[in-house]
């Protein structure tokens, strides 16, 4: 399958593609990008949903108000959110080495990517959940629902559309961040743009990466909007 795609791309681009970058390398880079986005999004969602739900439930006037948890967690989230990704990338190298064993490569990049996107998704989840009409929560309480039932049977399903749109936004930011992760040798199409386009003055690679990113973001956005409309 992969070989077929590489062959097809090579023959398709043969008439005009003069760069040292082979289509084989390009497909590898694309795979690395997908790999990073998928896993960082997966871990980021786990982080984000736990964070978002916890903050919504424990906030003053929430369904399980708890000052200690709310006021403890909130500043930590803010601190993590305040770091630009490029700094985070370097700052967490010790942690990455501890978790993955190396600070280079796709898996190594997933650690800072998760730390970057997790708190961000958490904030987005929090906003989506807070948008749910208070009356829905009141009606759930009146039915005798437990706090967990209120979260999982009322708030989350009602926030579904908004959550999907917000996760779409997060995915797009994450695609941007994976391109930066190329700077620490994480691979991916960002890496191509840096090592071929920037360091070797190969403009065609830069153009290729820009087009690919453009298409990728477009597809993610359209998919998100389509999913949000489904019920």
């Amino acid at each position, binding site marked *: 399958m992969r070989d077929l795609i590489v062959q097809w791309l090579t023959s398709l681009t043969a008439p005009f593609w003069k760069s040292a970058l082979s289509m084989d390398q390009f497909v590898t880079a694309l795979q690395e990008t997908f790999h990073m986005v998928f896993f960082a999004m997966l871990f980021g969602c786990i982080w984000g949903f736990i964070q978002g739900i916890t903050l919504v439930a424990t906030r003053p006037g929430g369904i399980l108000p708890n000052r200690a948890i709310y006021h403890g967690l909130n500043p930590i989230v803010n601190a993590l959110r305040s770091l630009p990704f490029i700094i985070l990338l370097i700052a967490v190298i010790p942690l990455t080495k501890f978790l993955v064993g190396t600070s280079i490569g796709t898996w190594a990049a997933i650690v800072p990517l998760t730390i970057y996107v997790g708190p961000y998704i958490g904030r987005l989840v929090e906003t989506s959940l807070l948008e749910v*009409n208070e*009356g*829905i929560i*009141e*009606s759930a309480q009146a039915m*005798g629902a437990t706090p967990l*039932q209120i979260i999982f049977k009322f708030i989350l399903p009602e926030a579904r*559309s908004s959550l999907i749109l917000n996760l779409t936004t997060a995915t797009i930011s994450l695609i941007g961040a994976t391109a930066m992760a190329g700077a620490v040798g994480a691979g991916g199409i960002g890496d191509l743009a840096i090592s071929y386009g920037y360091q070797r003055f190969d403009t065609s690679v830069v153009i290729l990466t820009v087009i690919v990113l453009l298409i990728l973001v477009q597809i993610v956005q359209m998919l998100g909007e389509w999913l949000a409309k489904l019920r």
Partner: protein
Amino acid sequence: MIEFKNISKHYQLKGQTIRALDQVNLQIPDGSIFGIIGYSGAGKSTLIRLINLLERPNEGQVIINNTDFTALSAKALRQERANIGMIFQHFNLLQTKTVAANIEMPMKLLGWSAAEREKRLNELLEFIDLKHKKDAYPDELSGGQKQRVGIARALANHPKILLCDEATSALDPQTTQSVLELLKKINREQGITIVMVTHEMDVIESVCDYVAVMEHGQVIETGTTLDIFSQPQHPTTKNFIQTVLQQQLPVNILNNLENQNQNSIYCLKFLGKSAQETVIQAVIKQFDLSLNILFANMTEINGAVIGQMFIQLLGDPAIIQQALQFLEQNGVQVEQAGVQG
């Protein structure tokens, strides 16, 4: 019986203490339709939320069928809540779920089997007459239909009490009447106690057996709807009744009279007991007077006619006195008329 004992509820807002409820004592008999009326901010919504403890009182007890709800554990309270249905002004249906899924929600929370849910769902859809909308989403329904779904959802678990928080305030008058008819049917057929909060006196007039009038966090007057309508004591109560029953003679009617002597105008109050409008006919036959009916405003509450009639009596003052006495003997309260300025 639902009993409020010395209930007080206050909270802090911008450093000031707001007394939402102040020493409220109230008893709501089983099987009745009990209306709580008041202007916004009177504390009526807080009061109804105390019944299932969506709001907690700072002082006092809420006792339902000899159980002190304020003393229940969180778990026991949730179990009790499942036996109290509630409907809301803005319906509060899950927008992402179909009518069927919304109605089944309370049954799912209680862990009913799919077969039990299906059976009860069909009964309820039949009852609210919305079988054809089973798979529709709330945004495809009219306001009245949404409230019917809300009612079905509230009744799912065979509650003994149904709480209605401004349940008809977002509906047009015609839809309001049909929803009120449905509530009346629930009360009469299933014996469910209905407590409703409203700011509309005509809602009270058309369905309630009892009414409590609230102002500034206190119950200022309470009694049967008939008593409150026929003999309101507090000015606020009188204001509310004025919205459905004109208490004074409109000034335009007076201006159009040939003989504008206000002393000749009387207000006859029919208090629903023995008084019938036929006494007017008797007056005309028995007394040599000219009697003009200027304005009348009557309503029926639980089968009794109450209201006012403004008449002008012209003739010999002695005969007028006799006629007025005759009216009073027949259960009509007679007053010199006030005129709306």
